[in-house]
């Protein structure tokens, strides 16, 4: 490995940033992960600059050219209300990307900590947490999500534009049921790690429970969590689409890839591109996240030679 060739003088000057450099270098070797990263970056940039890039107002209706085919003016044609599909797609990236990323990172973080606490402390702490998780897992997710979204539909978060307050509320509902998988995953990992001698060594050094959890348990149980996270990113887009499809997610006129897909059901055979492009976005995002996950998992595992 490259670090072995550094002489001791350079070595002693390298401190915190070197870890990122090493991980970055290892990540770059995973070609598909880099491609995925580029695609996600493009999506994120288009989401941020949607107002600059979009040729039309995504909310502006113009019934005359509704369901028009792609043309020079409307790159991807128009929808049933004559809104520019391309512009809506760009704006939809904002909501869809935000919901997906926010939900999964928050849910996985909660899951990692709750799982680590559950597995590490064991006994009644573990029993209580696991019974709660099992209870929540036995509940059918979709009806519950519908119930909660219906209940919270009228709610808004003051000070936020309507579409963002909707996005955050739907995210919170998704997070409420999203942390269960990773909790169980991390708990299992921690249960096996807890008995290892390096954990005993840390205790003998006087490390607090919190230090042991953050320095030893979590770094060693992160690999399956990253995989779970990347699978979850794809899954959340679909779940959000499903909720929107049933009319309980983020509802039109606010565009998301999910509700755009739902909107064009009747016209799928006449104007297939209306379904194709939002679908492609969902597909590319979830695939890219998966490859990034693969790359990250490999890059973060010091035992793997890359």
């Amino acid at each position: 490995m490259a670090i072995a060739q550094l002489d001791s003088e350079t070595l002693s000057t390298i401190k915190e940033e070197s870890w990122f450099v090493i991980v970055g270098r290892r990540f770059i070797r995973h070609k598909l992960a880099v491609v995925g990263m580029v695609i996600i970056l493009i999506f994120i940039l288009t989401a941020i600059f949607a107002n600059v890039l979009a040729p039309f107002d995504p909310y502006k209706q113009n019934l005359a050219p509704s369901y028009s085919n792609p043309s020079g003016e409307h790159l991807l044609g128009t929808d049933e209300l004559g809104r520019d599909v391309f512009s809506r797609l760009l704006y939809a990236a904002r909501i869809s990307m935000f919901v997906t990323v926010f939900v999964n990172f928050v849910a996985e973080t909660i899951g990692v900590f709750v799982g680590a606490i559950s597995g590490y402390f064991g006994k009644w702490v573990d029993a209580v947490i696991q019974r709660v998780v099992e209870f929540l897992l036995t509940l059918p997710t979709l009806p519950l999500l519908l119930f909660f979204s219906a209940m919270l539909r009228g709610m808004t978060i003051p000070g936020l534009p309507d579409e963002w307050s909707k996005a955050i509320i739907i995210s919170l509902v998704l997070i409420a049921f999203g942390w269960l998988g990773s909790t169980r995953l991390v708990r299992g990992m921690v249960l096996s790690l807890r008995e290892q001698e390096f954990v005993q060594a840390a205790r003998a050094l006087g490390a607090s429970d919190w230090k042991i959890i953050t320095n030893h348990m979590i770094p060693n149980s992160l690999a399956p969590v990253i995989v779970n996270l990347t699978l979850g990113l794809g899954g959340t887009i679909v779940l959000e689409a499903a909720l929107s499809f049933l009319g309980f997610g983020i509802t039109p006129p606010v565009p998301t890839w999910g509700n755009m897909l739902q909107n064009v059901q009747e016209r799928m055979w006449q104007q297939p591109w209306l379904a194709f492009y939002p679908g492609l976005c969902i597909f590319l995002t979830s695939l890219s996240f998966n490859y990034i996950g693969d790359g990250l998992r490999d890059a973060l595992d010091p035992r793997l030679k890359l």
Partner: protein
Amino acid sequence: MNTMDKQSKPDLLVVDNLVKYFPVRSGLLQRVNAWVQAVDKVSFAVKKGETLGLVGESGCGKTTVGRTLLRLVEPTSGSVSFEGKDILKMGSRELKPLRRDMQIIFQDPYASLNPRMPIGESVMEGLHIHKIGQPKERWEIAINMLKKVGLEEYHARRYPHEFSGGQRQRIGIARALAMNPKFIVCDEPVSALDVSIQSQVLNILKDLQSEFGLTYLFIAHNLSVVEHISDRVAVMYLGKMVELTDRESLYREPLHPYTKALLSAIPVAHPGQTKERTILKGDVPSPLNPPTGCRFHTRCPIAVSQCSQEEPQFKEVRPGHFVACWLAE
């Protein structure tokens, strides 16, 4: 010899009537329906600067003793006093400063280092926990310790999987040493290593002992290793300590029949030489339900009827020579 002046040294660690029973749970309600008597009323003292060897078969409780001393396993009862303070009564806050003085080296060099942590970080971990020095100083201490065990500075940024078993064991030693401890529990530190590496690690331990004035509790099942490194040797059988004396007397004239049997099992290097073998019959009884009286009586070649009824006391039959046997005078 120096054994004599070591005997006159003060006790660093005194263990009195240490007991550890592990509960065996079963059934739906996880009720405790049996106890594994891993360590039963063990008493001994470790003198400042000495190496006390602790030998016994697998499962006799020697590792449990070692871990209990550091409170890695909570004992059922008894007392352990380190420099006069009873560490079993301490809360976690009082215990923390004591962690610097008492360290442990583990048996399995593959499991004793965090695979996701560069070894320099592992060695620095204790310094970080106890807020000793600035980050730069900690790094220097860590490098210094690694050099003491024969590793170089450039090793510090590498991960455990890049090292051999012997190297990892030495990293484990460096980690314990970085805390500048007074007392180290060596829990079978060489039994997972091959023979050529064993002597290397043993010699490092010996050198460090004389350099830093360390006190060791050296747990092992290999009598030759224990003979090489120990000043005094304690023998355990099924959770009980059966004999404790200085190395010379133990190897020259063991008093407990179990010790005799163990010593007779050491292979002799000379082909023409024969020696008397005491071969023990049967297996070690289960610590779930240990024999009454002397726990060794079921396998003892010289047991008398008293042995199965009354438990012999662990008493000093000669100066500095403790035995738990009715027939040892």
